[in-house]
């Protein structure tokens, strides 16, 4: 197993953990940050998959914008899940 495969394994696991975290987290702000984490990892994975264009887009849109609109929406509503 090459170091690349290990890296991918780690990234995938991190991604799944982040996903589970954002699904189960009661604090929505943290959940939104969880999706942001997913996007960061995703962006790296895209880079590893030789897709720099997509990685850049994911970084700009997934990490930054998407998270920010989530945060704004949370600000406008309730922060905590009942």
């Amino acid at each position, binding site marked *: 197993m090459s170091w690349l495969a290990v890296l991918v394994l780690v990234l995938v696991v991190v991604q799944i953990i982040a996903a589970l975290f954002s699904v189960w987290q009661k604090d*929505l702000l943290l959940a939104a940050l969880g999706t942001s984490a997913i996007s960061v990892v995703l962006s790296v994975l895209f880079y590893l998959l030789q897709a720099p*264009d997509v990685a850049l887009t994911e970084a700009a849109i*997934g990490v930054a914008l998407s998270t920010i609109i989530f945060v704004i929406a949370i600000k406008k509503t309730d922060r905590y899940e009942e």
Partner: protein
Amino acid sequence: MLYYIGAISLILIGMYAVLTKKNLLKIVVGLSIVDSGVNLLFISVGYVKDATAPIFSMPSLTADKMVDPVPQALVLTAIVIGLATTAVALGLVIRLYDHHKTLNINKIRQLKW
């Protein structure tokens, strides 16, 4: 292979959130996780082992050593569309919160039968 499993797990986790979480924002979070999963899956479908990114930035690069560019182009579009959906969904969530003062989907059931 690992990519596939990771992507599919993301899709399933996202769907699980959509199906069971009561909070509207959580549901939207679920939708965006599903989107991420689909995008990852699509890019990995286009991957070719030991190939480079499909950009002829150096003369040494040749066409037969590049990954499939089509999925990348499609995913670019898909990411933007996902963002648009998320934005509209969040707008609706804000509206719903405005009217119902709650985010619990079980309490937002005026229309039925």
